[in-house]
């Protein structure tokens, strides 16, 4: 009974974390940019959702608006700064970090440091095997699963996916074969930002929003991607999320939340050291 509760909890947390990390996984895995602004994009998505909802926009539409808005912000960032630095990963890391600083400040200026909360559209609980599960959390988890599987299908079963994968494998050859590299990079970057905004909007009913909620999600998302294996969008994100989020849930049973997170971060660093290319990739 108790074990089932922990298992359900771990599954939900895994899937929600996978959703939060997915935008980072796309950008890092496909075009090699560590988007340090990922956390700020989640936060921006959350705040835009909050603004829309307080102005009477239905929740799902609000989330969609947030995702599109963050994608547009991402497009501007990519076009003005990032595209000039694709061959210098370290510079893109610093620039996206600057984006994080500026976005967080702008959010603080506009909304102030107070906590905000979004009304939960599905406040009820459903019962699985005698365990009460918040309906909204379950819905988001299912959505995350669907989203990641769909993205994997696009990447591995469509011609757009073939183009993107070809680009990753050999940029020069892809260009010679007539692929518009700049445009494809832009699309991928925007897709990642869209996912970040979407995740930011969807997590809002589960926690209270402040300008720094993205901070911890950035590091967690990064560890999800690094532990799962960069570029392993489907399996890597899932396994990484399970190892980071799931184990945090399990450790949180025996110790405090903050200690559990510290243990998990330490374990993630250990994995980075022993398997720098992720647990899925053979050494």
């Amino acid at each position: 009974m108790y074990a089932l509760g922990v298992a359900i909890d771990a599954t939900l947390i895994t899937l929600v974390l996978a959703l939060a990390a997915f935008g980072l996984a796309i950008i890092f895995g496909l075009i090699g940019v560590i988007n340090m602004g990922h956390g700020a994009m989640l936060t921006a998505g959350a705040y835009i959702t909050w603004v829309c909802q307080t102005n009477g926009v239905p929740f799902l539409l609000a989330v969609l608006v947030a995702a599109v808005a963050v994608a547009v912000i991402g497009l501007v960032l990519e076009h003005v700064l990032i595209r000039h630095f694709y061959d210098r990963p370290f510079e893109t890391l610093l620039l996206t970090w600057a984006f994080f600083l500026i976005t967080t400040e702008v959010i603080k200026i506009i909304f102030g440091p107070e906590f905000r909360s979004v009304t939960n559209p599905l406040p009820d609980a459903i019962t699985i095997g005698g365990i009460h599960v918040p309906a909204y959390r379950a819905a988001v988890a299912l959505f995350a699963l669907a989203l990641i599987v769909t993205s994997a299908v696009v990447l591995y079963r469509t011609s757009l996916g073939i183009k993107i994968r070809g680009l990753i494998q050999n940029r020069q050859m892809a260009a010679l074969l007539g692929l518009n590299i700049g445009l494809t990079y832009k699309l991928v970057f925007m897709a990642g930002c869209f996912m970040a905004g979407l995740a930011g909007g969807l997590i809002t009913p589960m926690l209270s929003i402040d300008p720094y909620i993205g901070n911890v999600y950035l590091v967690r998302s990064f560890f999800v991607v690094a532990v799962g294996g960069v570029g392993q969008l489907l399996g890597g994100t899932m396994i990484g999320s399970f190892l980071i989020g799931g184990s945090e849930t399990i450790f949180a049973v025996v110790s405090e939340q903050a200690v559990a997170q510290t243990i998990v971060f330490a374990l993630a660093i250990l994995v980075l050291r022993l398997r720098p290319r992720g647990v899925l990739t053979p050494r």
Partner: protein
Amino acid sequence: MTTTSSAIPAGRAGRSRRLLTENAAAVAVFAILGVLPLLFGGYVIYILPQYMLYGVLAMSLALMWGYAGILSFGQAAFFALGGYTMGLVMQAIGAPEAAYLGILVAATIGAALAALVGYFLFSAGVRDTYFVIVTLALSIMVEQIAVSQSQITGGWNGMFVDRMDLAFGPLGAVSLWDDWAIYYVVLPVVALVYGVLRWQIQGPFGKILAGIRENEDRMVALGFRTPLYKTVAFAVSGAMCGLAGALYATHASFVSPSLGGVLFSTEIVVWVAIAGRQSLLAALLGGIVVASLSNYLSSVAPEYWQLFLGLLFILAIVFFRGGVAGVFAQLGRPRGGE
């Protein structure tokens, strides 16, 4: 940081001239800092030692980022660790000499943790970009532990630390309660740290670090055990942060979890990026000047100041890789020099 970056003028003559000017500038800076308490009093003299310790933090980052080419977002973690260590040691041992032990232990713990994390990652050849995130995680971990283990650290309320005395064993002790007294303790320590670091950086150690920054594979091929050098650099950097943290704690008489946090770590990176990462003096001044300006302007226009810093940071990365110091070096360079 695999691409080359050079704020170094071409030719032996140019280099020695710049060397001379930086040494002269350093002497001037420390001389000015030395006479300031004679001209000013009150708040300026109270707060300056803290900014000088921020300067030490900035130098510790410049050593890693500017010389070895490895960016760390975890300097604040070592700083906070040093501060808490100082507080705990002084609490545990009542004697006035405990302060020395506290400083020593703080620097040692900073060095040890940095060496541990550094060797663990560098020896496996973990990518520089991963190192950034690991050190960022380190900051988050220290902050969270400081908050959650409140029975030891006081949690969000922070921890009070006594202002240390300058004890001379049986000869008695000099109280440092006066702000100018502790000013003249902190200043020589900062000057000493700068001097020793600069001396080492000019020597073989600095050259090896620069070699690693410019082309690590080549350094490996030349037979250098690069993980070892990177680890030593990070350990020195961690020790500097621990030392600065300990002195900061006893000066401010207070440590709080936010000293180890991500935001403070980020500020250090911004100071160094704007001031110039390849000059220790620039980093030191960056810490002092940007922190003072932050303090002043955050009372005038708090939000916009942070925004402005962010924009400056972008400009520094995109256009002025050497920061303000790099711009000066560029101006001083003879025409057609490179």
